[in-house]
């Protein structure tokens, strides 16, 4: 539950930043990307849609159309690592098999860098 709320809060922050934060607006201005963050079982997650400056989102982890999916082993780990907002924590989660990336990893990096702009 906490993970789903975290994703929703993240979406709202991104949405607000897409309207108010000049640096972030520029960052997303030309990008089209579908970023899915979910748990392995697909029960929890959220799809973030970037379309040349506009952001929308859909709840749930079961979405087929994505450019990249960050797949967490479980919601608890996902919440702990994501709320820490630490590159090192994400790296160690990936090294420990708790996080896997499906699709094009570049988009994951792009998304992470974008999130850093608003935190």
């Amino acid at each position, binding site marked *: 539950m906490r993970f789903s709320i975290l994703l929703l809060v993240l979406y709202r922050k991104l949405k607000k930043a897409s309207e108010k934060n000049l640096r972030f607006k520029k960052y997303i*201005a*030309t990008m089209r990307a579908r970023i899915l963050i979910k748990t392995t079982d697909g029960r929890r997650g959220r799809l973030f849609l970037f379309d040349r400056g506009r952001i929308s989102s859909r709840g749930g982890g079961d979405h087929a159309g994505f450019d990249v999916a960050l797949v967490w082993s479980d919601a608890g780990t996902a919440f702990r690592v994501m709320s820490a907002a630490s590159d090192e924590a994400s*790296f160690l989660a990936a*090294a*420990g*098999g708790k996080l*896997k990336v*499906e699709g094009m990893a570049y988009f994951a*990096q*792009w998304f992470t860098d974008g999130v850093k702009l608003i935190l």
Partner: protein
Amino acid sequence: MARIYGGHLVAKYLKEVERVEMAFGLSGGHIEQILDGFTEYGIRAIDVRHEQAAAMMAHAWSIYTGNPGVCLVTAGPGFTNALTGIVNAHLDNAPLLVLCGRSPIRDDLRGALQEMNQMDMVKPVVKWAATCHDPARIPEYLATAFRHAMQGRPGPVFLELPPDILNAKVPGEIAPGLAGGTRKFTCHPGDRALKRAAELINGAKKPIFLGGSGVGFSRSDQDLRAFVEKAGIPFLLLNNGRGVLPDSHPLCVIDTGFAGMTLGLSRADVIIAAGIRFNWTLQFGGIFPEAKVVRIDVDPHEIDRNRSADVGLPGDVASVLEHMLPHVEQRDHTGWITDLRNASRAFMDSELRQRESPSEPIHPIRLVAQVQEAAGEEALYVVDGGDTTYFGLVGLRSRERAGVLTPTGNLFGCLGTGIPYAIAAKLARPDKQVVVLNGDGSFGFNAMEFDTAVRHNIPFVCVINNDCAWGMIKHGQELTLGKERLQCSELGRRHYEKMVEGLGGYGEFVTRDEQIVPALKRAMAANKPSCINVLTDPTVTSPATIMFEQALKVE
């Protein structure tokens, strides 16, 4: 002493002093006496169909052999055609010697055939350029050209030779003092800087050695091996440094791909960057904002470029590593390397599965995996294209020096280098199987060089990753403009293999996964210049496309 033509003296110097065995060029009236000199003194001339290919072949020759590549082009259009290849060598720091014809000095300003100001055009893109006005000084000018090409940071040099001196007769002796040819000097910083660097390296928890072309040109195999193995440091060798130590070395993390490079560099606490520039491909150094940086470069101006180094070590890579080694302590970074490999695999999961799984249409990374299976780690690979370069770079493995060669470390982005580089590779290493992975777009630039390869009996295999498009541009346009607004980025379904057959080579057209390896084996067995034209999935975008688009996002 017999008197000989200035053009013959050029060849005599090349052969007897610099021991040049081969030159790349295209004939022309202005340079006829040099060509005749090649006959006289036994220099093999590889004559091409477009001068840019000659420059590219000579450039690649320098990478494979470590000696300057010699390119001979005629005046005017011969010169302008070669310019792209010269710029390519300039941005790749390749020691390319361009010998160029010129309209007669006698007829300057009178509208002579092919009269143009070549010098002012070429000066910004070479290390050194001169016109020789005195046939007796030809050896001196050539010696100067070779020294400039090789000393310090290597690079292309340009010598303009007008017919006034090439057709004049001079005494044939080589100038005294030049008989030994170009010497290569090495240099390294003093102990204080070396110790400071070693302290950083000894204290590092997550170090990475990042080597570029400077590692290759300094011939640093032994010193690099001793350094990384003692310090226990994982390494990435890029550009013309690739293969100085084999990709299969236990400390080599090239297998972690693009994701591994990004992750590794961003998580490292100390980066030893040797002979590599922090250009756009490394986000101008921004990819590792928190790491301490030890920077080794033969050009001191490079040390703090784009990103201040914590310790700067000006000098050639081999010499610096050799002298730093006694100060470096034995370390074991197995835990860090394991974490890096595991994390990278988590990020590369999809790509790894695509490599292993047959697909229809064929995924480009699957094609690369099949090419690797057919040709193995002993082959020399050349990659050429946009997305194709990405897939080749991350998917191909070689045990050989410059075993996976890309165009200019992706700096000039010069398409069309693949076939010329492959021809040079085979000439430099005739014992090796040479495979070029070409995009269908990039194939077109120098495809006529298959004729060169057929005439000179230079077998190699060209595998075309044929997505019927300028893929990187097309996918970039799809991302930024929309699929409905594609412009000038699509090509047709073309039988390039038939063109190669028409020129006397071997060709096959492949559309299914199971056809790839058998077709490649037949091509290798044919022992001819060969083209395997493989239709691949036109919808696949590489991460390089996204990176390319982002890099051009300027408002």
